[in-house]
């Protein structure tokens, strides 16, 4: 089955499964199979922001006054965030668009990936503002062993899915051999790969990102690098939305209501999915050791961050119906919540940052009883 940018058949997209059905024809949103994705798109659009809105001049001074080990923590964290968003800015489009069958889901992928490109732009904005030579940071991302190690597990499943999709698109279903390599592009294997890729994306957005957010906010809790934290707060707000989207897809697939075959695939892939969570949690803990290897910052050290990894991993696993992997514990970083609240950003409502602000929204509901209190 080759991919077509416009499938001229007159099929009803609401009868298609989310993935591997007929490719999408008209991008129409008047009737939707899953209105939740349309709502996510609208929410994401209402969140629109630009990094240049945030002033970073004080951050530059703060950064220059930091001791060396804190600079190491700050820059390493920023490098890791840059890597994660470089991946997320392109991969959902490349991996999922060729196989998606619902217009609202297709547009959600595009909206999602677009917002990640804003995140990438904001890292450049931050780095440009706090140090004189941005290349020193960017060039070291691909040479930092600790980052490259994790990049591999972040991207492995994406790459494997994209490879299978490509073979599938040219040669169709079946087992194909090229230059001595065997590609199993049976529908079953494609779907398994898709399911596991979505799990790994969920781990990326729901665990890996949050560990890095904790570091960014820890600085701002001490009233330094506050501009940076303000940007990360906006990024965190977007990421919470993305992970909700991914959780929806995974739960829909696992329920078997969308495509019955996925129910058994989800059961079959259970162990692999758990392994993805376990690997990510371990890598994040190792990263915490590396981050604080030269010294801690007030309020955060390798142990507390590792506890947070365990806590957040449990929360995310529960959301997907898995049992908890680590002993239950309270949130070791209770102040994180204040940074993750979406609409207490103190701005005038006509500015774009307040999430609840939508143009032209009025309450039209008038009830008979509304004027009961009035005496004429």
């Amino acid at each position, binding site marked *: 089955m080759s991919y077509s940018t416009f499938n001229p058949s007159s099929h009803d997209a609401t009868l298609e499964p989310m993935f591997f059905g007929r490719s999408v024809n008209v991008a129409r949103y008047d009737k939707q199979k899953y209105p*939740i994705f349309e*709502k*996510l798109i609208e*929410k994401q659009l209402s969140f629109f922001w630009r990094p240049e809105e945030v002033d970073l001049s004080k951050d530059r001074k703060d950064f220059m006054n930091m001791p060396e080990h804190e600079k190491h923590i700050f820059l390493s964290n920023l490098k890791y965030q840059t890597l994660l968003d470089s991946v997320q800015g392109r991969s959902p489009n490349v991996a999922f668009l060729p196989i998606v069958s619902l217009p609202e889901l297709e547009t959600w992928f595009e909206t999602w990936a677009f917002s990640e490109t804003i995140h990438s732009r904001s890292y450049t904005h931050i780095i440009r503002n706090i140090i004189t030579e941005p290349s020193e940071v960017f060039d070291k991302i691909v040479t930092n062993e600790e980052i490259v190690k994790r990049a591999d597990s972040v991207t492995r499943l994406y790459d494997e899915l994209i490879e299978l999709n490509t073979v599938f698109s040219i040669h169709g279903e079946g087992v194909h051999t090229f230059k001595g390599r065997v590609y199993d592009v049976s529908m079953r294997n494609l779907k398994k790969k898709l399911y596991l890729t979505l799990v790994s994306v969920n781990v990326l957005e729901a665990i890996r990102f949050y560990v890095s957010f904790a570091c960014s906010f820890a600085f701002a809790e001490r009233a330094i690098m506050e501009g940076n934290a303000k940007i990360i707060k906006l990024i965190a*707000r977007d990421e*919470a*939305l993305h992970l*909700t989207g991914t*959780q*929806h897809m995974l*739960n829909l697939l696992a329920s078997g209501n969308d495509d019955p075959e996925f129910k058994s695939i989800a059961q079959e892939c259970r162990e692999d999915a758990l392994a993805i969570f376990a690997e990510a949690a371990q890598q994040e803990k190792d990263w915490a050791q590396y981050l604080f290897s030269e010294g801690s910052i007030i309020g955060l050290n390798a142990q507390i961050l590792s506890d947070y990894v365990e806590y957040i991993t449990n*929360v995310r696993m529960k*959301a997907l119906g898995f049992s908890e992997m680590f002993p*239950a*514990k*309270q949130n070791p970083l209770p102040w994180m*919540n204040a940074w*993750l*609240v*979406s*609409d*207490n950003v103190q701005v005038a409502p006509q500015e774009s940052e307040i*999430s*609840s602000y939508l143009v032209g929204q009025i309450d039209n509901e008038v009830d008979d009883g509304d004027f009961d209190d009035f005496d004429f």
Partner: protein
Amino acid sequence: MSIPRIKVNHFHTFYYQYEPTVLDSLEAQEIPAPYSCRGGYCGCCKVRLIDGEVEYVQESLVDLNDDEILTCCCVPKTHIEIELPED
């Protein structure tokens, strides 16, 4: 209709004081209700609605079972009984 009463299992019962959401009422009562985004999409404030009805004041974008509500998105419509998640 009379002022709705909110019963929180393992905590206490109180009258709803017309706070913007159930979550705000729980906080006003110093009940440790979980939350994160307060925008209806992270799912952290999910609680079990055992009895009564709520009215949504903000759209919820999270997968919910029939007996679950997001406290950041609704206000009580009748007397309600809820239970916070364990841990």
